């Protein structure tokens, strides 16, 4: 297949991935690498490079809409970014030393976990008392609700920071946004309100991925002919997805996409173990 035939197919596949990713909140980036590696037989390193740039595109595109709503906590984001960017550079450097089969297996495990995490219910946090470290770092803030601004306290800062280093490492190692793990670190460990967690996580994804992108670019993972249709497709898909999101019932869709992710995960692990990736 030549470039003229392959490019529209790559674009279409990425568009669908971006659309479903935005509508389910899982992010389209997570299925791009398995899609390219399994369906298009693209080498996993090139696949990760294309996936990473599409993650930056969707994160920045969505963040533009989010910041205006006033949910993003810039202090939490910037403080935790120290952990995610250092983790990302470490992970991206590690990726250049690991064989493709091992990356595929780790990828599959992370995919499985993400599919599982997407079925989790949103937890409501009881109003926690002020935490000493969070107060010192001035992480407590407020967010808009229909009943006026709602203030919240943050806790579990050291654990959250540690988890964010892990999220950054996975992001760099696999070329994903690792949004699911970032939300878990903020929502579960730090008791940040869910809406603030997701928007702040989205802001952080772009910065984290940019930290990995430098390493990927220099190692020659980012192929222009491949990244072009993938990045444009995922971006367009996610923008359409964000627009139709309020009008659709997402419960069934989440389940369907979660099942697709789980199947891709098993395929990745199987191909990794049998050495076919």
């Amino acid at each position, binding site marked *: *297949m030549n*470039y003229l035939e392959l490019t529209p197919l790559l674009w279409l596949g990425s568009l669908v991935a971006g659309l479903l990713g935005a509508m389910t909140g899982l992010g389209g980036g997570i299925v791009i690498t398995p899609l390219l590696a399994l369906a298009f037989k693209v080498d996993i390193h090139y696949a990760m490079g294309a996936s990473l740039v599409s993650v930056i595109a969707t*994160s*920045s595109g969505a963040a*533009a809409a989010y910041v205006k709503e006033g949910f993003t906590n810039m202090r939490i984001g*910037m403080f935790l970014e120290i952990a995610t960017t250092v983790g990302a550079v470490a992970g991206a450097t590690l990726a250049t030393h690991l064989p493709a089969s091992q990356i595929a297996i780790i990828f599959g495990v992370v995919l499985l976990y993400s599919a599982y995490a997407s079925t989790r219910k949103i937890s409501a946090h009881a109003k926690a008392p002020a935490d000493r470290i969070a107060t010192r770092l001035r992480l407590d803030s407020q967010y808009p609700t229909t009943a006026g601004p709602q203030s919240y306290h943050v806790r579990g800062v050291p654990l959250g920071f540690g988890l964010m280093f892990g999220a950054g490492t996975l992001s760099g190692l696999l070329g994903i946004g690792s949004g699911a793990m970032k939300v878990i670190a903020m929502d579960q460990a730090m008791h940040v309100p869910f809406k603030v967690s997701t928007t702040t996580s989205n802001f952080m994804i772009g910065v984290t991925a940019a930290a990995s992108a430098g390493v990927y670019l220099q190692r020659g993972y980012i192929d*222009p002919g491949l990244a072009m249709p993938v*990045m444009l497709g995922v971006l367009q898909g996610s923008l359409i997805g964000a627009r139709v999101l309020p009008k659709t019932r997402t419960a069934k869709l989440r389940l369907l996409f979660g099942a697709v992710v789980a199947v891709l995960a098993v395929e990745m692990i199987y191909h990794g173990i049998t050495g076919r990736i």
Partner: protein
Amino acid sequence: MDDSANRWSEQRIETIVANLLRAGVVLAASVVAFGGILFLIRHGREIPHYGTFTGEPEQFRSIRGIFGGAASLQGRNIIQLGLLVLIATPVARVAFSVVAFALGRDRMYVCFTLVVLAVLIFSLAGGRV
């Protein structure tokens, strides 16, 4: 402390950040699409070899190489230039946050943000100091 004035400037900063991000993504996508069209017109009938990893040639890997090739209107180099704009967008946002925190006299967060910016620049500079 004048809280309402502080809120107002925060909202203003958020609006600027939102516009910065949108502009970065739109510019990057336009440059990538333009380069893509040039590339497909000239090389559309060639066969890609994505199945085996050989790594990209130097002109697609370094900032200097990308700028050099884009100047001579090579399609693939223009795509890489667009991707570079894309990667630079969150970096620009972090750089802008340094200024925003400095305007708010938030010294602790100016330091945190500078650390993040340093890591990003270190990575883009090729992981070499």
